[in-house]
């Protein structure tokens, strides 16, 4: 078997609620293979987002370890992780979080600009991504001039800007109508093929989930297959 690209060991996470502790993850382990498409499902409130955030280094577990290839991510500082995310991981969320002060193309350029890549280079890359997603005519539109589906595609473009190895998505179609949802779903698999991505997606949509090569169900703080 191949070496996993990302591997989590007995992750736990609880939140303090009132006076008591509310355990959400009770020792989750998973190996994610490079190039696979993994879908995480589970009831609402089962901890899918929490897990995704920890796998994506946006949050830290209470205990357990996270390895990227052979690198122990738990040992990195916040600023090192920020840089790591910038170069290795892409994120798409239920809400697009597209910044309203920037045009579509500028939003997509942001991760590259933060990484210190030149404006011209970033603009050229962003334009290529936009046309890949059929949005080249929208490049200089501001978010309030774009539809929900278009905004989600801008968010996907932004997530792919730095050519990440892993793309995380948390209910990326949760806020879209069925037509747009279909476009986004197809886009994910198209992009996975084009860019050789590893996909880790949380969804409620059963039909979407069935398209993934592996499904994991989260319940009561553990994976049950």
């Amino acid at each position, binding site marked *: 078997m191949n070496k996993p690209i990302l591997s989590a060991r007995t992750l736990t996470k609880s939140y303090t609620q009132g006076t008591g502790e509310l355990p959400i993850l009770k020792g989750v382990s998973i190996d994610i293979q490079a190039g696979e498409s993994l879908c995480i499902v589970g009831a609402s409130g089962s901890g899918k987002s929490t897990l995704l*955030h920890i796998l994506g280094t946006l949050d830290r577990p209470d205990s357990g370890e996270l390895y990227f290839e052979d690198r122990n991510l738990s040992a990195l500082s916040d600023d090192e992780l920020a840089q790591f995310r910038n170069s290795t991981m892409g994120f798409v969320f239920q*809400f697009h979080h597209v910044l309203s002060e920037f045009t579509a193309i500028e939003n997509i350029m942001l991760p590259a600009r*933060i990484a210190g890549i030149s404006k011209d280079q970033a603009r050229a890359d962003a334009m290529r991504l936009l046309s890949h997603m059929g949005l080249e005519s929208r490049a200089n539109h501001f978010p309030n001039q774009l539809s929900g589906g278009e905004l989600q595609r801008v968010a996907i473009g932004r997530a792919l800007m730095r050519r990440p190895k892993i793309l995380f998505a948390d209910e990326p179609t949760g806020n879209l109508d069925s037509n747009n949802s279909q476009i986004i779903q197809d886009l994910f698999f198209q992009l996975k093929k084009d860019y050789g991505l590893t996909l880790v997606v949380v969804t409620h949509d059963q039909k979407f989930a069935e398209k993934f090569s592996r499904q994991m169900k989260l319940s009561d703080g553990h994976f049950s297959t």
Partner: protein
Amino acid sequence: MNLTLFWIASRLLSSSQRKILTLTGWVSLLGLVLGVGSLVVSMAVISGFESTLKKSVADVAGHVNILKFSNEQITWQDLVEKIKKSDDLVEDGVPFISIEGVMAHKGKLSGVMMQGLDPASIQKVLNLSTRLVKGQFQIQGGEEPQALIGKGIAQHFGVNIGDQIRIVVPIASELEVNQFRRRLVKLKVAGILDLGKFEYDQRMIFTNIETVQQVSEIGAQYTGILLKLKDIDQARAFIPRLEKTLGNGYRIRDWKSVNEPLFEAVKIERVVIFFVIFVIILAASFNVASSLYINVVQRFSEIAILKSFGLSSKQLVRMLSLQSLVLGGIGCGLGVGVGVLLCFGFSWLQTEFGIIPGSVYKVDHIDIEIRFLDVFIIIVTTLLICYLASLAPAKKGARMTTVEGLRYE
């Protein structure tokens, strides 16, 4: 890299879609503008006041004032030669005699200071001729000696060019220490001077040195020498050198120490006014920072998404500081603009309406002076305060956890 942060920071500020600056934000920016503006004006007024005084003192009393006490028999010509030879800094010197007198005219009385000067060398030392507002710049002696009088005297007594004025001078009696004789001197007004400093205008009468020598019955004696230097700002350093040259029997002061308390007061006033008005800037900067703080909290999810794709806490702190500096910069820019406009307005007001009472402020007209150094200090301190004030919102932004901002819209 910093350019990128600047780009993001300023774009987030200039948002037309979602108002980053709430009403309180605009009000605090306005406060900053007004604070910087009034600081620029007050520093310009103080600097102008100082310069006006300095120029007045130098024009009327020279750069260095030497009082001769010694009984050394040396003519003023020889003394000036000796001083000129001793140091390259010295441009020229003029002898003077000062005596107090009482001027009586058309039923009015007033104490005056009669200053006898050498008409041949006066122009080389004092800038009095530039201050002539009426008549001719002449102080010839002889039968009908000429005089130049301060404009305050002209106004007070209602005298004009060509008028004769009478001054009573007390002469100490050789026989009895406590007795004085009176001597009357008649002078013809040749010109009226605007001397800049209020007291000068009210008291000074310039005339020929020989006339004063005759009136006060002192022969060829003189009170002292006024010097002009090639660089007025080296006057203070020059004094010890001159003291060495002349030895005992002379009292030497520079233009500043002749009016020491006044210049000291101006110096203190400058500092006090700076800090009093600076409080406005301080308050405004913290208001700006607090609207940024609110903004950081409101923009929770934007900050979270920026962090998710790699904006580090360090970069975030720098970005928010930049925002504060951008606002501070705008405030400074507009404030300096407003200040300069106000300065012009003030200049206009004082020429149109003569708004400065000379009896209170020592001068009745100030040439407002916007000094580069003043403006520079104002801008630097304001930006520094804005930067310091931004640290709280910046820390807040850096502390906020990423995930919370990503769960909601």
